[in-house]
């Protein structure tokens, strides 16, 4: 049994805007004090979004349903700079509350790839995503049947308790359903990741937890699909062993010069 009191987990938050980052930081806030984590953040300037804004007559839909003309490239950049400041400040607050170090970086490119690359050396990656549903939903564990990380379970229970939310387990058994297996009303079994994702698309989730090292989500593509259907932050465990490019642009705060450091590329 892992000694929780001695566990230190490093959590990295990736997002393409402060609105998305805020949803992730809300969760990290609860996790950080328990796991005595160190925190990092990476704000990714998605090229696809900048490109789309160049198309004429594009419109933005706001959270209250109103629409407005899409901003220009330069306006998006300006907004991103403001988002970076806000992200940094919130991260520092969260880290301070947990008594942890923090680091921040600003990148450009694809959110998932950049976040995965940046997550080398970190234990947990949280991809931020603002909510579409006005009502906060369940805490969803997406796991391989009989291959569950204790840390992820603990985190799910903690979040469910903190937010007074139901906890639901989506188990993927890759077609190896066992006869006579008993499932509780909070547990759902699926033959494949696709099935699980289809079910997740119909579920009001507040956060989705997955273990990258144990599956069923194992690739950047899986994460992208997961993010697309869940419409909520995705918390990815087992990320430090992930096979990603070595060019780590958000060094762990355990590096000698990384305490409270901000780096912008």
């Amino acid at each position: 049994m892992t000694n929780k009191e001695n566990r230190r987990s490093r959590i990295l938050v990736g997002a393409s805007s402060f609105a998305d980052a805020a949803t992730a930081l809300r969760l990290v806030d609860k996790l950080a004090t328990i796991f005595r984590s160190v925190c990092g953040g990476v704000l990714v300037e998605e090229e696809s979004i900048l490109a789309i804004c160049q198309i004429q007559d594009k419109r933005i839909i706001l959270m209250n349903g109103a629409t407005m003309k899409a901003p220009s490239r330069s306006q998006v950049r300006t907004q991103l700079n403001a988002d970076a400041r806000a992200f940094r400040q919130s991260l520092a607050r969260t880290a301070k509350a947990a008594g942890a170090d923090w680091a921040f970086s600003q990148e450009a490119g694809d959110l998932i790839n950049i976040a995965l690359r940046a997550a080398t050396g970190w234990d947990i990656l949280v991809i931020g995503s603002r909510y579409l549903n006005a009502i906060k939903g369940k805490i969803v564990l997406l796991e391989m049947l009989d291959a569950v990380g204790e840390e992820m379970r603990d985190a799910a229970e903690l979040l469910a308790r903190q937010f007074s939310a139901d906890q639901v387990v989506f188990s993927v058994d890759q077609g190896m359903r066992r006869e006579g297996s008993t499932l509780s009303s909070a547990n759902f079994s699926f033959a494949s990741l696709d099935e699980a994702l289809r079910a997740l698309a119909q579920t009001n989730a507040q956060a989705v937890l997955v273990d990258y090292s144990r599956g069923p989500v194992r690739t950047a593509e899986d994460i992208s699909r997961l993010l697309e259907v869940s419409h909520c932050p995705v918390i990815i465990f087992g990320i430090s062993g992930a096979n990603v490019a070595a060019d780590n642009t958000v060094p762990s705060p355990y590096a000698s010069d990384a305490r409270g450091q901000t780096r912008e590329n």
Partner: protein
Amino acid sequence: MALKSTAKMDIPAGLPSSRLRIECDPKSLGFKTTASLKSTSGLIGQDRAIGAIKLSAEISHKEFNLYVLGREGTGRHTAVKRLLLEAAAVRPMPCDWVYVNNFDTPHKPNAMRLAPGSATALKSAMQQLVDDLAVEIPALFESEDYQTQRRAIEEEFGQKHEKPIAEFADQAKVENVALLRTPMGFMLAAIEDGKPIKPEVYEALTPEQRGEVDAKIERLQEHLAGVLKQGPQLEKEHRQKVETLHAGMAEHAVSLRIHEVENEFSKEPCIVGYLKNVRTDMMSNAELFLLSKERAKDGPFPEVIRKYHLDPHFDRYAVNVMVSHDANDTAAAPIITEDLPSLGQLTGRIEHISEMGTLATNFTLIKPGALHRANGGYLVLDAQRLLSEPYAWEALKRCLQSQSIAITSLAERLSLSPTTTLEPDPIPLDVRVVLIGNGRLHMLLQNFDPEFGQLFKVQADFEDDLTRNAKSIRALARVVADYADQEGLRPMTAGAVAALLDQAVRMAEDNKKLSLEIGALTDVMREADFYAVQQKRDLISDSHISQAIMQAEYRAARIKERMQEAVVRKTILIDTSGTRVGQVNGLSVVGIGNHHFGRSSRITATVRLGAGKLIDIEREVELGGPLHSKGVLILSSYLASHYAVDVPMSLHASLVFEQSYGGVDGDSASSAELYALLSALSGVPIRQGLAVTGSVNQNGEVQAIGGVNEKIEGFFDLCVVRGLTGEQGVLIPASNIDHLMLRREVVEAAKTGAFRVIPIKTIDQGVEVLTGQKAGHRERNGQYSDESINALVEARLRAFANTRRKFASQGDTNPDRKSRR
């Protein structure tokens, strides 16, 4: 003018020594020591004032508030306290008053009148209610029942919004459109090769293809906008449903506990009504009890014993006790004395606390004032202090007129009020106010504040003294004995009490009166007791009393002795023997604090031909006050009306107090000034061994003056230092005989004839004593008796008139102008 020598008349013997000091006989007191005396009510000679206090204390009509006036030390405070206690004892105990939250308009707290003793009980009951519910309600929300219902609501509303979102997502997927998250909001983009379409690819499309893409994007945008617009409404419905659930969960627990409190206070309809509002508010705000539970987890104390009611969130259910009475006490109205009658201390105040850089307040920060505490009873205030406090007097009047207590801060009155303030219900006021002050203040209020007379209809005017008779002497003896007993002093002998009463006569400045300044007499007793202790005596004797009086005199006598020294050393010129023309010894009283002493002054007069002008040099240089000037004008009228009335007044005279460089006021020296003038006119010298005091009227009658004892003793002390000659004394108005209570040394000197106190009724009488010559009277031929002083004065004035006529006939009507040339 040639003076015929005439045989001088002897100086009269003056008053017998028995008239100079009428002492109290210890044997007449009827006891040997005060230890054998029974306690008295402590009040004598104040029937008028006592009647007024009783009226004000007992009458139920409003506006019969009381002003108690009199000198310090006459027992005003003692009398008021004693009489109010008697009146308060038969009045019912007043109600309790509390402020509670007005849930609809929190800035207007409600006042509640409760039965005596109920306020603290209600406060405790509400605290207990909050503590109980703070434990019970969170437990309810942790119950499986609540969790199940809550989950059901979350599921219901979550699914209500999730379904259209999922439909949108499905539709977008079918139409190959991606939902992008930008920093500002959501954006839809067509998908090309699994990724959002790039601008150059979009531009490369045909217009029809672009139109198709744009159309589906727009359709989906509207779809998504429609889905998102549902969000706020769903949130609202979700919130309402959760609140209803909370209210329903809380309702049972709240109702049960409130019912318990209602049972306890079932006889108080206002409490029952208040509890209904509390119940409604608690059910609507059940989350407050959950918040407190969260905070409790961080606290050091177990939840079951934690005082949740101290949490500021529960202030809304607090009971702010303004006034409470113990129902177990013997019923009695309150008597409150407020020593600092400022606006806030009087009417109460609303305190503020700093929150987020601003000042905030609520009904729990209302603090009661003296009017609240005295409500239903009596409030005693010092008038001088009350009027010294800004806006306090106005506030008191306003409260008495409206018969309610409205709390206003000084900052509000000065328009400096903070951002939030309260308008609490005014509390009805039923109080009798007693102001204690001096007579001057009372007169000023009567004359210049019309509202004062309206609100303070009763005055209790304390006497300064009472008539001296056997009964009053014994009564005052008992009173001073009482005071001595209260002060824990040693018992006094009859002799000591007699000596004290002699001092009371002296203080009254009238040997037919006894002073009622018990405070001053108590001071003498206390000092006498000190000396008795020093001498290890069990009783205070007359020697201790005398010692106390003398020591007090001695302590204050430095300036008096320095003045006397100046006279003895002839720095200040005063003659106490021989005779001089146009010069007389006048007497005045110098007052420094509570100590007064007599002082001699040389008054001189010069005369010459003139135009009828009498110059008062003190007035000319503005050292003479109006009363002094009046005296001089009166004596000049006397002169003009008694001598040479058929010729123009052709006198130029001047009067001065020699070596006097401070102010002079009062007319007690006007007779002395007239004597000096008559001496100067007649050329007859005045005996310098005699001093004079007394005012004169236009008819030549000598009138009474004040401080006669100090004046006589002042001149006596000077004569003693130079050596008594047997031809020294003081002329006093005859009407001052009853005011004599001289020191024993003066009495002894008078007994041996070494010093005289000579009563005078008229100027003629006085001039005879001072000059030793007849004053003279008008005979049938209209002339004064030959060789009399009056004849000489008249002759001199006629001579001036004749000389002036001669000058006038020579064409110069102003001899003064001629003389200046």
